[in-house]
């Protein structure tokens, strides 16, 4: 297939071109005169923090939102003053939403070929034709799945492939992928990136929205950066570094210096020896000292979260000892662990860490209710005091204490979740994937808090599969694989690429 190689062929015509797009919601400008261009077959990254206007832009292109008067949209030679969802679909514009919008109870075939049962009059379903459509599209992606099994039987990574396959049904010319790798492991991500390359070779343009800057640089030809609803610029991806992108997205500079220090002399807060849960982790020994941040990394499924849950008393070890301040402890439940001074920030903030519809104040005090009780009842005054103190200390941006947690941004939600645990006065804080769904700018703020807490003497375990996070923020890094600790690294004596090579090998 003869497609324009971006950058190589002499100035091919853009597939998609938008100019002067503004969108106003009730007086607030979500987009201010943005222009955006994608070449045929190009992999283009759309970068920006939450609220920078990325999703608004995608929704303008797909016809969900109507831009203000003067905007011009041209796609594949046609000029539109605005799109409609039907016209966008017919023209070959596809979006894979972050939540995938799939139907877990329905078969793989139906999920992929669902377009065939919508629109028009009620009619007979041609199950055979749907299976055929699904099979062909999967073959194009170089995969085959059992078409008759319900989607719920498949992993997130496979569902992602089903979502891509669905987008390819019909004549797709451009596919928008919103955070496609957010819940994938490294191997699955690599497979996805291969698929993106395949699509690009077939001449299908892919617009990639991702928080993972390393993979963005690896996969993209160019990137468009948005900040506060304005266009910052369009850049060739090859010339970018993660820190440069962060700067462009936030308008601030962040120093990416290794924070590691030595804590060899400090007393051990947690000492674990030979901890084992068959099938989850084996013979894990580690020490975390006062004021130390211990990083634990490894691929998804390496047993990191299972280990954390065991330290937090939610699972019982089959063998091994846990010592807290030198004394052996045995937790019957996480209530024992909390009482002993262990706090665990769950990896799934949305469903486990915070109770979204409840207020910021209620969420913040829920783990330390004892402190706000007087005479068996919750004292409003004490509660407000406690909440105000932590909101201030962690710099959480809130409206009123009584607003629902769901009204906060990802970064501020995470701060509430951390504050909730700090309010229990822990001696050991376990942070499991603390930056999932948190903006780059806000991430730096969270790690500043982590560094400050460590400086105040808190022992911290930082679990993350994003290597730069543990590399820059931990004092020591443990590498877990298949339930075992297979390596220990000091960020001061190893480079990030060396660490990456070791973990991804």
């Amino acid at each position, binding site marked *: 297939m003869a497609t324009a190689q971006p950058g190589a062929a002499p100035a091919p015509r853009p597939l998609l071109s938008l100019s002067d797009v503004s969108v106003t919601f009730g007086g607030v400008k979500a987009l201010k005169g943005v222009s955006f261009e994608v070449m045929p077959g190009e992999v283009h990254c759309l970068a920006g923090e939450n609220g920078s206007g990325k999703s608004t832009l995608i929704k303008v292109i797909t016809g969900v939102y109507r831009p203000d008067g003067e905007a011009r949209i041209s796609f594949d030679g046609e000029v539109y003053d605005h799109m409609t969802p039907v016209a966008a679909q017919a023209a070959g514009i596809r979006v894979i939403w972050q939540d995938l919008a799939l139907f877990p109870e329905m078969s793989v075939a139906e999920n992929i070929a669902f377009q065939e*049962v919508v629109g028009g009059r009620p009619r*007979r*379903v041609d199950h055979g034709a749907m299976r055929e459509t699904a099979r062909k599209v999967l073959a194009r992606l170089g995969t085959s799945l059992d078409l008759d*099994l319900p989607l719920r039987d498949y992993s997130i990574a496979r569902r992602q492939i089903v979502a891509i396959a669905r987008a390819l049904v019909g004549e797709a010319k451009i596919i928008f992928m919103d955070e496609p790798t957010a819940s994938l492991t490294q191997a699955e991500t690599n497979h996805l990136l291969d698929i993106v390359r395949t699509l690009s070779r077939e001449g299908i343009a892919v617009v990639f929205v991702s928080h993972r800057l390393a993979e963005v640089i690896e996969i993209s030809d160019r990137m468009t950066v948005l900040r506060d609803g304005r266009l910052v610029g369009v850049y060739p991806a090859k010339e970018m570094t993660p820190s440069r992108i962060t700067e462009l997205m936030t308008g601030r500079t962040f120093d990416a210096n290794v924070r590691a220090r030595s804590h060899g002399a400090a007393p051990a807060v947690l000492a674990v020896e030979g901890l084992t849960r068959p099938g989850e982790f084996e013979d894990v020994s580690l020490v975390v000292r006062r004021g130390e941040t211990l990083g634990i990394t490894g691929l998804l499924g390496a047993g990191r979260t299972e280990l954390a849950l065991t330290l937090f008393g939610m699972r019982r070890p089959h063998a091994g000892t846990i010592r807290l301040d030198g004394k052996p402890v045995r937790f019957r439940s996480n209530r024992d662990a909390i009482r002993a001074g262990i706090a665990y920030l769950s990896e799934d903030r949305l469903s486990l860490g915070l109770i979204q519809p409840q207020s910021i104040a209620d969420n913040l005090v829920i783990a330390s209710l004892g402190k706000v009780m007087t005479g068996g009842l919750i004292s409003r005054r004490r509660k407000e005091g406690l909440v105000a103190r932590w909101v201030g200390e962690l710099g959480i941006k809130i409206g009123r204490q009584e607003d629902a947690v769901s009204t906060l941004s990802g970064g501020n939600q995470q701060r509430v979740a951390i504050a909730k645990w700090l309010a229990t006065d822990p001696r050991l804080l376990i942070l499991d994937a603390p930056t999932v769904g948190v903006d780059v700018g806000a991430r730096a703020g969270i790690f500043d808090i982590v560094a400050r807490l460590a400086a105040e003497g808190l022992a911290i375990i930082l679990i993350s599969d994003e290597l730069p996070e543990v590399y820059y923020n931990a004092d020591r890094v443990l590498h877990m694989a298949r339930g075992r600790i297979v390596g220990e690294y000091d960020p001061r004596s190893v480079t990030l690429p060396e660490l990456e090579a070791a973990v991804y090998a």
Partner: protein
Amino acid sequence: MLRRLQTQTTEMVLLAVIVAICLVLSLASDRFFTLVNLFDLANASAVNIIFAVGLLVVLIAGGIDISFAVAASVAQYLTALALARIGGGGWVSGLIIAGSIGILLGAFNAFLIHRFRIISIVVTIATFNIYFGLLMFFTRGVSIYDLPDWWTGKIILFERQMADGSWAELRLPVLVMALCVFATWALIRHTTTGRQLYAFGDNPEGARRFGISVAAMQFIAFGWLGLMAGIGGLVQAHYAQEVVPNALYGRELDVLAAVVLGGARLGGGRGSVLGCVLGVLLVAIVQNGLNLLGASPYAFRMIIGVIILVAITLSNAQIGKLFATRSEGRAAP
């Protein structure tokens, strides 16, 4: 083949349980496995199965309905009054009137759910009380025995005399039931509307993004159940040969239990016509068996309760998992 079995685990397990219970009952009672008893079982289950397939559609679309059984009573009563006014009518006019009233009552539920964004269980508990209250208020609980002859006359589809001289009869309700089951199966399996109902129940937001109309889905699901309730009401009066205002009161929970037993998921997206029919049959067979064995009717209630708990605990996901690990285990070496 195993794959096919795996996607229909609930149905297979139900079928196995039904076969097992039938075997036990055949051994325990010489009256169970007779044509007379089996035909009686079919005749008596027909109305519940008609209700069940209607309710199944609502469950698949992610809703629930408590009001359909009393709605069937309302349809029954109003149909009897209307037929008296037009001078008797016949099966066609009867089905049209009862079906229309049923659809109207179902559509009223859909209207409340869609217009005011109230969850279906709350709406239908309210309409359950409204429908039943109005019915009892206006009828003062008086039954109608004076029904047109075509309505109460026994219609036999198939009969055979047994050795002891008794007659085994398959009656009209079974035919109506078969048509309703077939129509529902065709609707949910083989029309685009049916697949949209599944998708809507499974992931409403995902369905909306495909341009599926939420209102249409609600009206179709509750309208279909209303239609089945109307037809079921007509058939129930035919079978009982009378219209008693509170005859169907309480039936909603029996039917709901049977449908859930048949693998339909509260919350939407899952459920099959086969499972639904098997669910009703399982309950009916257990009841029939206990009757034949002379057990107390309270024992039946208790046993059904236990069956439902066990069925939900061994929810299809888990049974599916058992199958999956076993098949993988076999493939591994």
